[in-house]
């Protein structure tokens, strides 16, 4: 089957808003969720800012049996999945179990839970390690827990490709829908703002060490010097168009195109793979560059990577040929959660006729990007979401109104 795959439900947990309504209100008006780390004392670390999801109390959302066996990323994902299903008007108990799948992404698994168990191991001994460590840290745990909680036994998996993973998961969900599963819960939530997760990110060398919340993460700016990490993301309900029509569901938009490429060897001198990913997504959707209303950029805030992304966009769309935005300047980079959160923002842009801004950034003139730095009212029918993962992953997802 190659019928349309549509999005019918959104569940958002973002540093600048818990829940879709708060997220969108704050995102369209440029309100940032970046601040000093509060989940641990960051005093002795070179990077001290993060985008933390505010106001989430797991006990308010999850049954008691799940609390001892879940990392924060899983708790957020389970709550976001509940919201996405409710938004879609789906009651899983009323749908055959094998007609529903779960495909999420994860960049690093449940780090905070794992840190606690490792500390128990070396300070007290192996008998003090929770039996639930066997899966609570694992990349696939969000897919598994969403599947168990909602009785979803259709094709399910996890995709691990760093920040590109969130888009790759949505594409894999679309494949499963085309193969005949009517409904797949997808998207991604990552959350590893704990000392162990922090040192792992520091070792990657791409974290901003600025302590000024509005100067720390400046993609496409001459002062770009790394990113602020964040937590959260979005869980989405994807369905075959047929399933959505039968249910009479509200459709946010169609997953119309997807392309994924891998970068060449770093010192090969060859062009990075992002341009080809964009072209593949456009070709997959049968869309010309001129039909794209907005690009949600990967926005690495590493000068070399910003240059490469700007070059790819110029090559496909021409100089200043398309509106470009990076609302992740309000959240930090969310790893696998970033793509699905941008996907949610793109779909909400279509509903509202508003492109949310890139905050704090003064774009380098030579990049020739039409960077949206203030909320822009304009019809949005077709949006491209980009994500690059460390290690060479490039993914592009095109969404279109139906």
């Amino acid at each position: 089957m190659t019928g349309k795959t549509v999005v019918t439900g959104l569940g958002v947990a973002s540093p600048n808003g818990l829940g879709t309504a708060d997220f969108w209100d704050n995102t369209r008006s440029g309100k940032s969720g970046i601040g000093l780390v509060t989940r641990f004392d960051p005093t002795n670390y070179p990077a001290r800012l993060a985008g933390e999801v505010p106001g989430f109390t797991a006990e308010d959302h999850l049954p008691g049996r799940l609390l001892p066996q879940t990392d924060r990323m899983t708790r957020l994902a389970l709550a976001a999945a509940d919201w996405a299903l409710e938004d879609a008007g789906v009651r899983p108990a009323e749908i055959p179990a094998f007609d529903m799948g779960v495909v999420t992404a994860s960049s690093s698994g449940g780090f905070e839970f794992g840190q606690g168990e490792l500390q128990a191991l070396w300070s007290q001994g192996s008998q003090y390690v929770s039996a639930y460590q066997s899966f609570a840290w694992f990349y696939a745990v969000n897919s598994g827990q969403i599947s168990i909680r909602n009785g979803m036994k259709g094709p399910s998996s996890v995709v691990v490709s760093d920040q590109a993973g969130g888009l790759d998961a949505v594409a894999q969900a679309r494949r499963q829908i085309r193969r005949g599963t009517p409904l797949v819960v997808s998207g991604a939530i990552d959350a590893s703002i704990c000392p162990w997760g922090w040192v792992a990110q520091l070792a990657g060398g791409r974290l901003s060490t600025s302590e000024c919340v509005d100067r720390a993460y400046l993609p496409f700016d001459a002062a770009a010097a790394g990113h602020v990490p964040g937590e959260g993301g979005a869980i989405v309900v994807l369905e075959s168009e047929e399933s959505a029509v039968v249910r009479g569901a509200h459709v946010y938009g169609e997953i119309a195109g997807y392309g994924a490429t891998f970068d060449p060897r770093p010192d090969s001198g060859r062009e990075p793979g992002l341009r080809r990913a964009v072209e593949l997504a456009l070709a997959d959707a049968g869309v010309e560059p001129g039909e794209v209303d907005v690009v949600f950029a990967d926005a690495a805030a590493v000068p070399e990577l910003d240059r490469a992304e700007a070059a790819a966009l110029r090559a496909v769309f021409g100089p200043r040929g398309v509106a470009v935005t990076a609302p992740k300047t309000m959240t930090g980079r969310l790893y696998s959660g970033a793509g699905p959160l941008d996907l949610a923002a793109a779909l909400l842009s279509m509903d509202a006729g508003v492109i949310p801004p890139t905050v704090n950034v003064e774009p380098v003139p030579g990049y020739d990007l039409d960077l949206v730095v203030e909320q822009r009212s304009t019809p949005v029918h077709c949006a491209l979401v980009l994500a690059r993962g460390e290690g060479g992953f490039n993914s592009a997802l095109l969404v279109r109104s139906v």
Partner: protein
Amino acid sequence: METRHFTLDDLRRILLEGAGADDAVDLDGEILDLGFDELGYESLALLETSSRIEREYGVSLDDEELTDGATPRRLIDAVNDRLSAPADSV
């Protein structure tokens, strides 16, 4: 030497600490002869429970005592049998 005794309250505490409680189950109710599956605990929850009993009471339970329709009463009896046995046979 005083022999330690393992009670239903001890089991409730350990279950809650290690695996939480099913919201549909009243752990303070009459649970002694209910199966752990009826109480909402799967095999991993029982593994965690057994591990916590072992590190707190120094007794090691067999897998069969945690499966095959195990109930709180059978688990409590098994722990107390070990606690009252001569030390070299534990």
